[in-house]
């Protein structure tokens, strides 16, 4: 029976199937997602496993697929979505995929390499082209300088001229022509140019002419090269020896140098050839890109399908690594954990798998009994998996232990809502949760960790919002204002003359006036129908009423929650058949809690129900403290007749339960052990004579001596703990001290066992040493049991008090939320409302926006997170430590769906 009440019953099953059908069978099981494979080769290292090569091949294929996907994204090629169910991958697919992928990868890499080289060529040619165009102007200018010695005409080109050079040039103007000057032309990055110029100047002392111009950045150039600006430069110098130096400088500055022909005619020729070369290159580049796009598009149709197949294959090989392959290499043995109710499904999946592979032998299922603890499996649906997740975050339940999840679905949002209680905020939260739930699939694509958390918890947030609306209606609090739906039970008018004592002057004299419910008409006699009366919202002593109410409510809720937890432990005991524990643990715990805290709840409810004069009403806290301290003086007011007797009886009962919890169970275990030991002892005494008996006997005495010391230790703990009373802080300190004492006791015992061991080794017979081994085991466990029981009892008793006080955080947080909400209204929105002129509406618009933003960030997100955390802590610690062990491990089946979902 599958339900959330308890984790599912699991069985260990042995599978036998043939090696040929292994792939298909495991693939079918993976699609089913209901079995967990056990590791049958735990001692083998990862690289020694049988199928490690295949796993490596799969990983290599995954790498290639990732590279392909990246290339596709870069070229803006759309990756087609997968069709529904792909065929089952089998062993020879591995080889086929391997070769396909390798070929694809090589092809793609080669294309990319060629493409890059072609681009580089094109860039160079474009540089040369612009260089040639620009240097035309320079050459003309140089010739004009030589022949006409006129200042250069204004061009659109920027020039750097030194007057020194011009004068020199002029001196040489008559005889030298352009042929005497040699030049170097090239392209350099614009931001490097000033430094370049400086270096040249320092080297050659101005014995050169340097012209440079910025290259026009065409669209094409920008697309190829990016936004880098480059300058064309040309240097005219005399002498070849200088050219070498300049060449070296240019290399240092990473300027690319191009040879430029000297005559105009040659330059024109070169320009034409460069043009044709560029055209060719452009065509080749286009063709290359088209080819690449074609290859990628063809691959894009299949890439999703391939990648999911590769993932499945890797999972299958990983699973095969976990199985045993027998000697004949024909049979594979696997051990799986699977839920008992799904055995038939597993069987049919296996039969389907073996049929697909065409093998003649059907796989064999063999259910085996085992002492190992199975994993914990709770079958959840989309709604319950959020709540199960927050339980599992604290600790996965022990196998077949009761599951707190179904109760958490109600109690967790409820405790949150008690701390959050505001209709307006609850409404905003509910609407947000409804939106997230409806958009869950499209929001998952954002792949942000935070959004994943919110999406996973969308049903929790929805319930929290709905419950908050409910508690908001009870607290009658909506953005810190109350609703008067049913008509308030309090009326102010009857307080005035002639009904009541107030006059007109009373209003002028006093700032605060108190409504007297005994004046007829002020209080209608019936309380407000649902929730807190709206009149409290405008009362100035609102907090003293609400605090008392909320504190008492928190204590009531807390004690009920804890009693429920104790009751759940009863269910666990019945299921695991620990009937002794029911009487030794459940009943004393229940009596302790009921007699102290159940009585506290009774006092609260009784005081609420009876009519009292408020001046004479006793405080419940004082009553409780006096009860614990047995303080009954005559002037103290009691709530009912016979209260003294009842209280004394209850306290004594509670106190009596403590030694019951502490001592009875260990004592019973001790007695049963003594009985068995006497039998064994008697046998041994018959077998051996002489000195051996004495040594065993002294061993026995030492054992008893150690136990007595134990009893004294925890006796001391217990007495002191009781005397110091019920205040939670002191109690927490004591818990630390008691636990450290218990730890000291445990270490003391372990040294004694070592001592005992040495004593045994000095005598030599096997039977004796085995006997003392048995004794040693007993000795250790006996002490362990006493210490464990002591810790458990102290934790429970002190825990009760501190946990009840812990539930007061319900009150504290709800007060904080209400106050924050009121402060936000008063400081932000009221400022806008109080402006009565026309400007008031504009201010209101702005201030409302601020109010909304602050409400969402501070009140919803911050307070919401805080209340969430505190409700979670109350569940994890105060509720679950009454019954939950949480020492299991989670069931992780082989499931292709979750594999593919997590990867994408």
């Amino acid at each position, binding site marked *: 029976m599958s339900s959330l009440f308890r984790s599912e019953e699991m069985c260990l099953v042995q599978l036998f199937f043939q090696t040929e059908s292994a792939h298909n069978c495991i693939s079918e099981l993976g699609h089913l997602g209901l079995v967990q494979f056990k590791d049958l080769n735990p001692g083998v290292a990862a690289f020694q496993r049988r199928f490690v090569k295949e796993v490596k091949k799969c990983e290599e294929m995954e790498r290639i697929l990732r590279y392909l996907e990246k290339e596709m994204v870069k070229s803006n090629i759309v990756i087609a979505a997968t069709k529904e169910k792909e065929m089952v991958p089998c062993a020879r697919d591995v080889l086929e995929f391997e070769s396909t992928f390798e070929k694809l990868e090589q092809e793609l890499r080669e294309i990319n390499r060629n493409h890059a080289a072609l681009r580089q060529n094109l860039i160079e040619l474009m540089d040369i082209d612009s260089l040639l165009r620009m240097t035309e102007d320079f050459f003309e200018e140089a010739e004009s300088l030589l022949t006409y010695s006129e200042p250069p005409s204004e061009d659109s080109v920027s020039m750097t001229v030194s007057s020194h050079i011009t004068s020199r040039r002029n001196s040489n103007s008559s005889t030298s022509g352009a042929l005497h000057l040699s030049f170097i032309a090239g392209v350099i990055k614009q931001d490097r140019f000033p430094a370049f110029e400086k270096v040249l100047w320092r080297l050659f002392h101005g014995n050169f002419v340097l012209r440079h111009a910025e290259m026009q950045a065409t669209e094409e150039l920008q697309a190829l090269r990016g936004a880098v600006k480059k300058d064309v430069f040309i240097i005219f110098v005399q002498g070849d020896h200088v050219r070498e130096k300049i060449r070296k400088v240019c290399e240092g500055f990473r300027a690319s140098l191009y040879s430029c022909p000297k005559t105009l005619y040659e330059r024109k020729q070169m320009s034409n050839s460069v043009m044709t070369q560029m055209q060719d290159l452009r065509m080749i580049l286009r063709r290359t890109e088209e080819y690449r796009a074609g290859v990628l598009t063809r691959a894009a149709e299949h890439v999703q399908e391939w990648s999911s197949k590769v993932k499945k294959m890797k999972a299958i090989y990983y699973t095969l690594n976990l199985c045993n392959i027998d000697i004949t290499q024909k049979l594979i043995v696997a051990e799986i954990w699977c839920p008992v109710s799904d055995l038939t499904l597993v069987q049919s999946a296996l039969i389907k798998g073996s049929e697909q592979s065409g093998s003649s032998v059907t796989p064999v299922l063999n259910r085996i009994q085992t002492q190992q603890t199975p994993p914990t499996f709770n079958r959840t649906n989309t709604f319950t998996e959020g709540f199960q997740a927050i339980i599992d975050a604290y600790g996965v339940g022990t196998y077949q232990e009761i599951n707190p999840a179904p109760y958490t679905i109600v109690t967790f949002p409820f405790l949150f809502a008690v701390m959050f209680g505001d209709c307006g905020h609850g409404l*905003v939260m509910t609407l947000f949760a409804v939106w997230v739930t409806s958009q869950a699939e499209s929001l998952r694509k954002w792949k942000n960790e935070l959004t994943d958390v919110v999406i996973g918890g969308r049903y929790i947030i929805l319930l929290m919002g709905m419950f908050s609306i409910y508690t908001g209606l009870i607290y009658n609090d909506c953005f810190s*204002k*109350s*609703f*008067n739906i049913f008509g308030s039970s309090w009326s102010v008018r009857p307080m005035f003359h002639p009904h009541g004592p107030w006059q007109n002057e009373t209003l002028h004299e006093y700032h605060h006036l108190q409504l007297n419910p005994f004046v007829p008409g002020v209080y209608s006699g019936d309380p407000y129908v649902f929730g807190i009366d*709206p009149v409290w*919202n*405008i009362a100035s002593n609102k907090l003293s009423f609400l605090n008392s109410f909320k504190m008492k409510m928190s204590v009531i809720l807390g004690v009920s929650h804890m009693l429920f937890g104790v009751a759940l432990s009863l269910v666990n005991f019945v299921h695991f058949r620990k009937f002794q524990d029911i009487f030794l643990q459940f009943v004393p715990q229940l009596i302790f809690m009921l007699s102290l805290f159940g009585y506290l709840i009774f006092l609260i409810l009784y005081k609420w129900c009876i009519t009292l004069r408020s001046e004479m009403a006793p405080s419940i806290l004082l009553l409780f403290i006096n009860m614990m301290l047995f303080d009954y003086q005559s002037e103290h007011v009691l709530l009912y007749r016979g209260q003294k007797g009842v209280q004394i009886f209850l306290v004594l009962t509670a106190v009596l339960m403590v030694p019951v919890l502490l001592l009875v169970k260990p004592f019973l275990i001790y007695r049963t052990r003594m009985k068995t030991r006497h039998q064994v002892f008697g046998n041994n005494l018959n077998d051996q004579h002489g000195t051996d008996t004495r040594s065993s006997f002294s061993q026995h005495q030492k054992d008893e001596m150690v136990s007595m010391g134990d009893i004294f230790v925890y006796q001391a703990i217990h007495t002191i703990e009781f005397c110091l009373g019920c205040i939670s802080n002191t109690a927490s300190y004591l818990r630390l001290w008691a636990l450290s004492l218990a730890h000291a006791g445990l270490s003391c015992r372990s040294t004694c066992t070592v001592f005992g061991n040495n004593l045994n080794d000095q005598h030599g017979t096997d039977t004796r040493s085995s006997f003392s081994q048995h004794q040693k085991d007993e000795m250790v466990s006996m002490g362990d049991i006493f210490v464990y029981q002591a810790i458990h009892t102290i934790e429970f008793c002190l825990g009760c008090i501190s946990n009840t006080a812990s539930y007061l955080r319900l009150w504290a947080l709800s007060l904080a939320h209400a106050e924050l909400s009121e402060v936000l209204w*008063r400081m932000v*929105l*009221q400022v*806008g*409302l*109080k*402006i*009565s002129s*026309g400007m*008031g*509406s*504009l201010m*209101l*618009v702005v201030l*409302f*926006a601020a109010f*909304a933003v602050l409400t969402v960030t501070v009140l919803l997100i911050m307070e919401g997170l805080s209340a969430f955390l505190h409700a979670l802590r109350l569940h994890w610690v105060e509720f679950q430590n009454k019954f939950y062990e949480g020492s299991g491990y989670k069931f992780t089946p082989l499931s292709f769906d979750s594999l593919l979902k997590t990867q994408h």
Partner: protein
Amino acid sequence: MPSLLFCGPKLAACGIVLSIWGVIMLSMLGIFFSAKSAVLIEDVPFTEEDIRDDKNPPQTIYGLYNQVGINCFIAASIYVGVGALSLCQVRLNKRQEYMVT
């Protein structure tokens, strides 16, 4: 004509949510102020003189209530405008998305 788009998709979506909330909450506040609800007494800007010098109580206070209520309604209508503007921005953003791809 230069683009009328001045905020991104997320800001426009926030604007729509804020406007819807503003319209609903401010109009409800306006209704409650016009109904002279007692719970909202502290939000009404009255002074001591208003109470003492009132010839015809409680008409001054009622008048103030009405004023604040009208302010709320005006603010709600301004939020309708803000909402319409945000809606335009959302539509323009969507259109731009289509054009780029």
